[in-house]
């Protein structure tokens, strides 16, 4: 068992866990989930499960310390004649120190395991003598559960959740197996108590959960795995292809990444429902976006929300940045000043976003690419509005919206080309060749069909893309097909599940000639 997409997981582990969950008394269901989660973690990462256990212990102890300090602050504030401002300041300092210890311990584990080699590689060319670092490996989902751990601590510090006295509940919150591999990144308030309560699972949840898992499987196996036959060879040896093929590979990689990641999220949300848990959605039709920042509100939603709440606002509202914002407002005005000063917080967000995706220069470039685009977009927005008004271009018309959609798609594909490259240097080189060495004839003379996908593969992908578009339009309009299928009765429900299963079995890209794509976000 190496991922959610193995027969052992789909046929044995998942149904077995769901069955056990149903059979045991409600008060013991949390134990089934915790045991299954650790078994899954152990199957994928072995002894590295010790690291997630350490993270759980650290947030448990730090949370308790923060809770105790908050209670003492409350008592001192309630005393008659207390200098409330002084009391607040004193306890703010103490609680910040406690929070910093807990956060740094968690981030320290992440940095040591994920970034030590990368950082050593950056320092060595400067002449620093670095010892050879031991290869420990990465626990599955470490970037995801570390973010959950940090969010819990910050939420306790802020007082938005109470410190949890139960270490096992915190361990389950961090390790719940449907989300451990690739998210979504949940907040304590969203899932921790629900996971512990062992709420009964309804027939509707079993249907919608199963159908959602099958839909996710179809996205992955029909599209993402099939596209791997073309994307992998081109990016493994891009020097053998011209700009036209590289552009096609970048477009197909963007589609592949979407189907892989959003398909895995469909599976995660569906599996959550099988245990009565509502996991947050991580995708909201990202390709319907009209700007790069809107794209990031719709793609990997929980990551964007995390960075907004725990990096963007805290940095924007920190003392030095506030002073900078004040100076910028006086110089540039109430709207442009904060937009200019927000560059500091946006830089932090996109540096962290790039590095979070991996220890590689291509990810740094990817983060800086979006930082520049989004910050520049905010700065030129007033000028853009004025120019459109002057030229008589309606910004609410279909023409302008169409232009925005095409522009955003180009921006996203270029970003994914950087993201898929082996290094920042290669990313820039491929971007250059995709634009300066673009030749359409290589797309039409049979070169593409010699890479790894035949005509039938392209037809299957094309049909599925149309299906995805229809599903996306329906969701944009607030229509939920699974709700409709549920209302139409058991025959339709079974038919939907059977059709999805057949779709995977008949059109899935598996067996001889296909190599399944690695779950891309699992290594983040």
């Amino acid at each position: 068992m190496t991922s959610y997409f193995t027969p052992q997981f789909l046929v044995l582990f998942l149904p077995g866990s769901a069955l056990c969950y149903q059979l045991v008394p409600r008060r013991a269901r949390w134990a089934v989930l915790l045991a299954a989660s650790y078994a899954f973690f152990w199957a994928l990462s072995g002894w590295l499960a010790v690291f997630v256990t350490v993270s759980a212990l650290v947030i448990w102890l730090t949370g308790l310390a923060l809770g105790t300090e908050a209670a003492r602050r409350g008592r001192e504030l309630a005393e008659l004649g207390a200098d409330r401002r002084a009391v607040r300041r004193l306890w703010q300092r103490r609680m910040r120190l406690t929070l910093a210890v807990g956060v740094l311990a968690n981030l320290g584990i992440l940095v040591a395991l994920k970034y030590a080699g990368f950082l050593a590689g950056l320092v060595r060319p400067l002449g620093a003598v670095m010892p050879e670092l031991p290869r420990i490996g990465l626990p599955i989902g470490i970037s995801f559960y570390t973010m959950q751990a940090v969010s819990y601590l910050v939420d306790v510090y802020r007082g938005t959740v109470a410190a949890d006295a139960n270490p096992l509940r915190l361990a389950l919150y961090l390790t719940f197996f449907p989300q451990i591999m690739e998210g979504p990144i949940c907040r304590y308030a969203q899932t921790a108590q629900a996971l512990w309560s062992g709420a009964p699972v309804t027939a509707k949840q079993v249907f919608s959960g199963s159908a959602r898992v099958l839909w996710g499987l179809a996205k992955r196996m029909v599209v993402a795995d099939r596209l791997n036959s073309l994307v992998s060879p081109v990016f493994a040896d891009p020097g053998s292809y011209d700009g036209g093929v590289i552009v096609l590979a970048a477009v197909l990689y963007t589609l592949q990444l979407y189907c892989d990641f959003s398909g895995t999220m469909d599976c995660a949300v569906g599996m959550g429902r099988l245990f009565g848990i509502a996991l947050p959605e991580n995708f909201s039709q990202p390709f319907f976006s009209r700007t790069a920042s809107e794209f990031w509100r719709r793609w990997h939603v929980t990551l964007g929300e995390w960075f907004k709440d725990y990096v963007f606002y805290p940095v924007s509202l920190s003392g030095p940045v506030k002073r900078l914002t004040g100076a910028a407002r006086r110089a540039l005005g109430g709207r442009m000043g904060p937009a200019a000063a927000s560059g500091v917080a946006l830089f932090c967000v996109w540096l962290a976003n790039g590095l979070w995706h991996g220890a590689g220069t291509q990810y740094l470039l990817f983060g800086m690419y979006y930082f520049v685009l989004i910050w520049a977009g905010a700065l030129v927005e007033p000028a853009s509005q004025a120019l459109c008004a002057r030229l008589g271009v309606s910004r609410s018309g279909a023409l302008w919206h169409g232009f925005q959609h095409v522009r955003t798609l180009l921006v996203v594909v270029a970003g994914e080309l950087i993201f898929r490259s082996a290094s920042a240097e290669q990313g820039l080189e491929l971007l250059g060749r995709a634009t300066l060495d673009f030749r359409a004839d290589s797309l039409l003379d049979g070169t593409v069909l010699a890479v790894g996908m035949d005509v039938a593969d392209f037809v299957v992908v094309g049909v599925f893309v149309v299906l995805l578009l229809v599903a996306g339009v329906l969701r944009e309009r607030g229509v939920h097909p699974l709700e409709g299928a549920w209302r139409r009765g058991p025959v339709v429900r079974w038919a939907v599940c059977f059709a999805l299963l057949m779709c995977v079995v008949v059109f899935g890209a598996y067996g001889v000639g296909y190599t399944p794509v690695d779950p891309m976000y699992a290594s983040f």
Partner: protein
Amino acid sequence: MDAILDILEELKPGVEYRGRTDLVDSRELDSLTIIALVAELEDVFDIAVPAAEIVPENLNSPEAIWALVCRLREQGL
């Protein structure tokens, strides 16, 4: 309360703010506008808005923003 409406109108003109209860949820106030709004509120009302208070419930309507301002002034943060 009118001061809140004036600030919002200055930051993002052309939007009907009275009666709205979805300013954040509908993305009328995006994160950059929220930072500009907070800077104005801190200047005008001499308050400090902590990051923990930047949640939709506090910013979705002019009334909620005013309630936040009143609460922070009372706390003397």
